């Protein structure tokens, strides 16, 4: 890999969207107005082009390293590229401090004085550095390309009857800023940049959820997202501090290297429990950002934001940051079985838990939001069962079909004049034929129908889960059936039956600015999965293999067949053993089972919601308790309100009272003393000169007396 070229590409990936955001913000309101989207499109487009070029470079490097027969997993496909030194820190405590030689003739206690040489030695820095490896390359390409499509889509979505909505330029500025932040998160080569990007995407998410800040529900949702994420980020921040304390550096390369050598900053062996603590703290952050139990509550509310935002930030990219982070920190996680178990269990539970809630919701975007939470649960489940490559693969395919579904929902919403409640309309296949087809593709992929992308990636995860934690695997299978059911419940409710629309709405198909990006995403939703199919040598997994070679894939818990599957295509044939063959049999059995389940669930949804809507009503009537529980989302929001929000509010009121009366009172008291002194000496002037002089003289006299009589 040509380091200088990669560095240039990295700089373009970061500066182009940032520049786009600045141009939108600076020139949008006065100059560009209705044309603001171009600044965003060009910025994100340049980043996407650079990200694809970067991906090509890395693909080339991986291919050379694999054909030239190097030991896979070597560092030659991973490059840490320093950009510049940012914040100077103290010398690393690991660097042995120069012992000041006692100077002859000086008393002993003075020996520590001449530290000058140490001071003049070059400091250690927090660097701005890029980490380019297959994982970051694939993430960057996904993020920027999907972002580009969504920015293009937003051009029409954010205007009505060809008039730009209020805040048009603000929207595009935030969107480009988000792309910058997300790229910084992924590209950053140390935990500090990861944290900065992490917080910056959180900020963008907050700004965009609250885009319609005049609407109280949107403002509340933005606040909720921010605060819930704060809980996770607190743990994440502590984790990063612990990393710095333990290893004396924040650079991925150095930290992972030290873990591999099993030393900490002092050179002692690592305490395994410390790694567990570290992994769990980092997982707190991931659970917040990626909406896992117990911090998932913000994501459904985040749908208050405009639909392109839901598609980009709250489905395809930002919420997968947690998955990326854990995949990146595999070196930390795989050393702790506890942490891995926690990740797997939380992932599995989240998947099934939110899938059940999605069964009864009627807001199309909320159904998709719960489905996103559930799919993220799958990804965490995959990470927890040492199948990081499958997690990233599912992340990749999910980005296409979930973005497609949200954009489709946006198209419906656009046509329905902002209404998104499934009870308000039906039979839209007549009014919105293109959107209907596109959503159908997205739904098929999400439901895991064979030959669509979601099928392959989900099936892999189930396979790994069943072989490591069978119970979680079965939960995953049930979730898969539920997923297919609620997805097609949504589809049939919206598009089947006679055409029915809300009062006063004249449905119209969206324009080509919206249809084109959706079509491209649909192509991805169908075909992206084939990158991971065994028949073509699983190029996606082979590409990622060097990243996870020494972490997830090296773990003994990982089944033997996996090593074969993940090995480069050229070596696969030689390594197949009888055990592996049995593994393949099981895998194909699972393929059939999960595919069949998906199709059966879709049929069930068709019977219930497409043909005989009375069945649903009957079920609802016979089990009102269960229905109510699901409809109210297990009352989790209410429980949080009672257990956390109210006590904290009370504490807040107490602090406010203390501040208002006690602290302010103290301030006034402190201020009153000099004022009173001033009044004593005040003549015609405002502030007496003699008084000031006297204060100086008295002050000096006190000082000299005290010091001399010490």
């Amino acid at each position, binding site marked *: 890999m040509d380091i200088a070229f990669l560095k240039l590409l990295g700089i373009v990936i970061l500066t182009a969207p940032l520049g786009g955001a600045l141009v939108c913000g600076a020139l949008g309101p006065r100059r560009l107005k209705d044309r603001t989207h171009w600044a965003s499109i060009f910025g994100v487009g340049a980043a996407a082009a650079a990200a694809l070029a970067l991906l090509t470079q890395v693909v080339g490097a991986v291919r050379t390293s694999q054909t030239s027969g190097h030991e896979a997993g070597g560092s030659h496909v991973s490059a840490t590229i320093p950009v510049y030194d940012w914040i100077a820190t103290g010398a690393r405590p690991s660097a042995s401090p120069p012992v000041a030689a006692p100077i002859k003739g000086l008393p002993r206690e003075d020996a520590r004085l001449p530290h000058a040489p140490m001071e003049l030695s070059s*400091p250690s820095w927090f660097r701005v550095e890029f980490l380019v490896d297959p994982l970051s390359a694939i993430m960057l390409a996904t993020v920027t390309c999907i972002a580009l499509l969504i920015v293009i889509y937003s051009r029409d979505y954010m205007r009505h009857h060809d008039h730009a909505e209020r805040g048009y330029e603000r929207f595009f500025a935030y969107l480009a800023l988000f792309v910058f932040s997300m790229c910084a998160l992924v590209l950053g080569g140390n935990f500090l940049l990861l944290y900065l990007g992490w917080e910056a995407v959180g900020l963008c998410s907050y700004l965009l959820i609250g885009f319609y800040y005049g609407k109280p529900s949107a403002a509340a949702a933005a606040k909720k997202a921010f605060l819930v994420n704060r809980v996770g980020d607190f743990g994440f921040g502590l984790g990063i501090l612990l990393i710095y304390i333990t290893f004396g550096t924040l650079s991925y390369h150095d930290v992972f290297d030290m873990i591999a050598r099993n030393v900490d900053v002092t050179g002692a062996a690592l305490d395994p429990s410390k790694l567990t603590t570290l992994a769990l703290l980092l997982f707190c952050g991931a659970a917040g950002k990626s909406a896992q139990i117990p911090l998932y509550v913000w994501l459904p509310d985040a749908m208050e934001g405009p639909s392109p935002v839901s598609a980009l930030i709250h489905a395809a990219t930002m919420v997968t940051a947690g998955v990326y982070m854990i995949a990146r920190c595999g070196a930390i996680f795989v050393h702790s079985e506890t942490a891995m178990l926690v990740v797997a269990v939380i992932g599995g539970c989240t998947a099934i838990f939110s899938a059940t809630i999605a069964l009864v919701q009627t807001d199309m975007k909320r159904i998709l939001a719960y489905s996103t939470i559930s799919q993220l649960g799958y990804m965490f489940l995959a990470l927890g069962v040492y199948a990081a490559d499958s997690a990233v693969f599912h992340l990749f395919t999910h980005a296409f079909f979930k973005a497609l579904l949200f954009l489709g929902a946006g198209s419906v919403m656009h046509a329905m004049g902002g209404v998104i409640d499934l009870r308000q309309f039906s039979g839209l296949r007549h009014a919105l034929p293109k959107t209907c087809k596109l959503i159908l593709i997205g739904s098929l992929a999400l439901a895991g129908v064979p030959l669509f992308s979601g099928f392959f990636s989900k099936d892999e995860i189930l396979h790994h889960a069943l072989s490591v934690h069978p119970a979680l695997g079965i939960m995953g299978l049930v979730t898969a059936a539920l997923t297919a059911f609620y997805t097609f419940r949504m589809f049939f409710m919206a598009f089947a039956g006679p055409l029915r629309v809300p009062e006063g709405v004249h449905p119209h198909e969206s324009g080509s600015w919206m249809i084109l990006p959706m079509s491209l995403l649909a192509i991805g939703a169908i075909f992206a999965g084939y990158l991971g199919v065994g028949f073509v040598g699983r190029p996606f997994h082979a590409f990622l293999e060097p990243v996870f070679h020494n972490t997830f894939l090296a773990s003994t818990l990982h089944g033997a067949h996996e090593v074969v599957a993940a090995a480069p295509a050229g070596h696969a044939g030689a390594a197949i053993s009888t055990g592996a063959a049995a593994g393949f049999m099981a895998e194909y059995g699972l393929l059939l089972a999960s595919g069949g389940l998906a199709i059966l669930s879709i049929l069930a949804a068709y019977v219930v919601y497409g043909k005989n809507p009375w069945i649903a009503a009957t079920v609802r009537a016979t089990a009102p308790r269960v229905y109510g529980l699901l409809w109210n989302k297990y009352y989790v929001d209410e429980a949080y309100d009672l257990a956390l929000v109210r006590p904290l509010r009370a504490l807040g009121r107490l602090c406010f009272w203390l501040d208002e009366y006690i602290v302010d009172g103290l301030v006034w008291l402190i201020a009153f003393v000099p004022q009173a002194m001033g009044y004593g000496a005040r003549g015609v002037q405002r502030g007496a000169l003699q008084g000031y002089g006297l204060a100086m003289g008295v002050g000096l006299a006190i000082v000299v007396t005290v010091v001399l009589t010490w």
Partner: protein
Amino acid sequence: MTFSSLGHLLPELILLTGACALLIVGLTRFAKTPSALSLLAGGMIAGALVATLLIGIPAEVGDLPGLALSPLTFYVRWLTLTVGLLLILLNWRQAEPSEQGEYLALILFAMLGILLTASASDVVVLFFAIELVSVPTYILVALSRRDVRASEAAVKYFFLGALSAALLAYGLGFLYGASGTTSLASMAGVWASRLQPASIAGADMLVLIGFLLAFAGLSFKIAAVPFHAYVADVYEGAASPVTALLGFVPKLAGFIALIRIMETVHWQLPASVMWLIWIVAALTMTVGNVLGLLQTNVKRMLAYSSIAHSGYLLLALLVGPALGAGPMSNGVTALLFYIAVYGVMNLGAFAALSSFQRGDRTLETLDDLSGLARSQPWPALALSVCAFSLMGFPPTAGFLGKLYIFSGAFSLAPDHAFRMPLIVLAVIGVINSAIGAAYYLRIVGACWMNRPREEVASVPGMTERLGLNIAGLAMLVLFVAPGPLLTKARIGAASQARSRSSSIATAVDPGPRGSATSAETSLAAHEP
């Protein structure tokens, strides 16, 4: 002194020439176009800046009586002249046209004073350099506007300044009496050899008194408690462009002089004096911030902010050079870095005040600022960036400055005798930053949240706004890429570490020149 050695003083000579030229040209018919004079002043400063950069870190020149060029000289030259350019932008047309020549010349003289403070090697030169900074500022306050408040402020400032100059001269006199020499380097040598190891603990009463008096005199310059009382009145009385200068020029000169004096005592003070400075620093921070909370006049608010910032800088001074491990712990580096950042952000805030007017006077109170963002979004943004920087909030350079200062205390060597008190002081500083945030945020809030009272108008000309924008941008850029400034600050502070080790070496080896050369080589070996 030979002619060639004068070449090392080129920046100072250019400033001197420029100041004299301005005095003369100000009397000719060119004075009718004030921009011409401002252009001349700016050009002279730019010329001096170019000369500084060409000379780079000056070599030690033996035959400049009373002056010793050092890496610190380079840093102070560079910093003063750069901020000086911004100050000229702010003062482009502040003075009455007939007084423009004198006015600008005084600014140049004050800057010349700072430059000489940094390279003075003799207490007499040091004293005169400090006074060269002070006297022009008294006059500038009076000249800045036709207003009885300005005259009153100037008189107050002058009398109290004279008092502090007396204290400083008295203190330096004691130091001379105790050492028998006026040369700072020889003084350091005398303390090192005659007193117990590089510390004046319980030793010479004369040294102690001299140090205390000099510290008191300089405390006035940096506006430390209890010598701070004049600040709010003077800041309020002077016009904003001059106030921007008052926040930077005397403070820089005062801290540089303090560094020079600390050098002579090898940064080793008896516990009683350490505690004294500790208390002064703690009081300065706290008084500044608490009184700042009560102000509604933004200029008074920034005056108290200036006091509080002196407290933070005193903490850095107490940490001193090279006591811990690494640059984050070098108090002098942190001080030099933060004073540069402070000068620019403070200047930005005053530039915002002087860029706009309501009726016929420029902005002064929070009420004047209200709703500024509505009509002037970009200047309001630049002002907010400066306010956030004063607060020490990322992503601004003020955050990094505070980070370096506070982390200095935390990274002191565990066996450092004064480690715990300094950590406590750093905690006090952090709490003070939080208190200070309350009033800085009121500035931001007034700009963005309050309803506009009446239309603000831009002052004629755009130099003030240019200065404001540069300051705001600099705060962001210095956060993203602090490296160049930090490297310069480290080089500036390196002379401290050197002087300290060399003077200790002097104590062992009575050949002063020889030891200086050995220190020189060790410096060269470790410089990146």
